[in-house]
């Protein structure tokens, strides 16, 4: 983020090396980027250090108070641990659900592969609000699953599947499967059937072949998919907000509540910076893990 923040001041020196026609072609995009990305990120970082009076009025005083408040509040640690546990948990379940899909797509005959590939990524084109609503319909107390279970007499009273952590898990895993499957498929290029045949001819059974041959070869795809899903999971907002029913507290939902409902922008900005730091740590961990598999 520091390189982004220094961009405008660095411009005169590197501008000299660019032909005019190139500058003109880049100008509209640079303007959009400046107004809706560089300035907002700089302003967010600044406001996270600004003192606010009651009612969200900003002052001119710079302070560390917002961060001190964050780290001295027990609730903040609950938010961080909730977000991290959800992030890791959802990533793990998504991986377990997506791996068979990706392996199937890798092995299926080409004429089926294209159709199934489109079906796998098509949920990405459907609004996350619509998909989350679908889960509210399926999991609600009067919803489809409880409706079927009670009408067939398997259960007497509806099971609570939504407005709790379970509902958030189910919804988020479903929302993230296409991303994970795409990453896995991209990393499955190295998986060739001859390696498995070689392992089999040397006497390895199905499980050993999976553990010793398939899994190591597909590890780069797994690492990439896990990074993507973890990052998307800890920053996702729509699904936890709607399926959590206001009972699941995460960093992302807290940012929204602080900014839009309580109008405490400096606190919201400080919480955002914490999320960005967790992002940076996840990225650093990924690059270390990815290096080991190369």
């Amino acid at each position: 983020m520091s390189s982004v923040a220094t961009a405008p001041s660095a411009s005169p020196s590197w501008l000299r090396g660019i032909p005019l026609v190139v500058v003109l072609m880049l100008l509209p995009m640079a303007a959009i980027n400046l107004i809706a990305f560089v300035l907002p990120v700089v302003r967010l970082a600044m406001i996270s250090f600004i003192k606010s009076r009651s009612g969200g009025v900003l002052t001119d005083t710079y302070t560390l108070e917002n961060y001190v408040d964050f780290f001295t509040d027990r609730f903040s640690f609950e938010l961080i641990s909730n977000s991290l546990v959800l992030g890791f948990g959802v990533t793990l379940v998504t991986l377990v659900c997506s791996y068979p899909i990706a392996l199937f797509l890798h092995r299926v005959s080409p004429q089926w592969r294209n159709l199934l590939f489109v079906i796998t990524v098509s949920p990405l084109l459907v609004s996350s609000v619509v998909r989350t609503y679908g889960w509210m319909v399926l999991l609600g107390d009067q919803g489809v699953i409880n409706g079927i279970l009670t009408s067939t007499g398997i259960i007497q009273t509806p099971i609570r599947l939504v407005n709790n952590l379970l509902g958030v898990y189910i919804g988020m895993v479903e929302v993230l499967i296409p991303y994970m499957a795409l990453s896995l498929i991209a990393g499955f290029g190295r998986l060739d059937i001859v390696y498995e045949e070689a392992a089999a001819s040397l006497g390895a059974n199905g499980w050993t072949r999976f553990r010793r041959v398939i899994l190591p070869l597909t590890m780069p795809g797994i690492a990439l998919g896990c990074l993507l899903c973890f990052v998307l999971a800890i920053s996702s907002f729509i699904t936890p907000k709607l399926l959590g029913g206001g009972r699941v507290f995460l960093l992302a939902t807290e940012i929204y509540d602080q900014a839009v409902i309580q109008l405490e922008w400096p606190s919201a900005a400080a919480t955002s910076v914490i999320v960005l730091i967790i992002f940076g740590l996840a990225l650093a961990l990924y690059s270390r893990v990815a290096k080991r598999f190369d």
Partner: protein
Amino acid sequence: MIGRMTLPFRILVACLYLFLLAPILIVLPLSFSNDTFLTFPPQSWGLRWYAAMFNHRGLIDALWTSLGIATTVTILGLLAGVPAAFAIRRHEFTGRDFILNLFTAPLLLPSIVLGLAILLVFVQARLLGTYSGLVIAHLIVTTPYVIRIMLTAFSTLPPSVEEAATMLGAPPLTVFRRVTLPLMMPGFIASAALSFLLSFDEVVISLFITGPRMRTLPVEIFDYVESTTDPMTAAVSVVLVAATLLIIFLIERTLGLSKTVGKS
């Protein structure tokens, strides 16, 4: 035997696909419920909630707002993104990698953080709850994809093709119209379609910057879902999914067509 797919494995994959598609498929039967509340199975069937949807002023207004914004964002995004991608692909200049990284960096930022950051700037610039504010905010979401797609499209078009046309005596405008444009068409269509869908579906950033008088459709649906559980949202969802399928189908047809045109 090796690499073969056993029946249990096929059943497992079928179940996973059912899980993946369940929330999209379930809204279809429920949208034809005539009940006042969401119940399953519905007590009565009919088109009541489709009628309610078309008579809901807020929803219809938001639909027109979203369509207008998505169209504007698509056009402006191509006008800004295509020249930028062309400059990055075809010209050598200092800081090229930095510019590319800067233009695609918004992809990496979580939208909840980006939404708040844009709110903080827009509140000073008096862009909150305005049409232009929403367009600018959506552009930062769509243009990284436009640039990525067009970079790939330009790299599949070697300069030598255009040079050959010029050497055979074609004036620059003819080269552009007869050579460059047809070869770029799939990239344009893919960028335009993705921009339109991304802008039309964008919800997190919009939640931060919409006002009471200027609301996009996903924000309107989000608020409706949060407060009410009746089958109207199912009807809205069915219309949205059908519209998305229609757009994908149309692109598939036109992209296929443009490919055959390009070959002949």
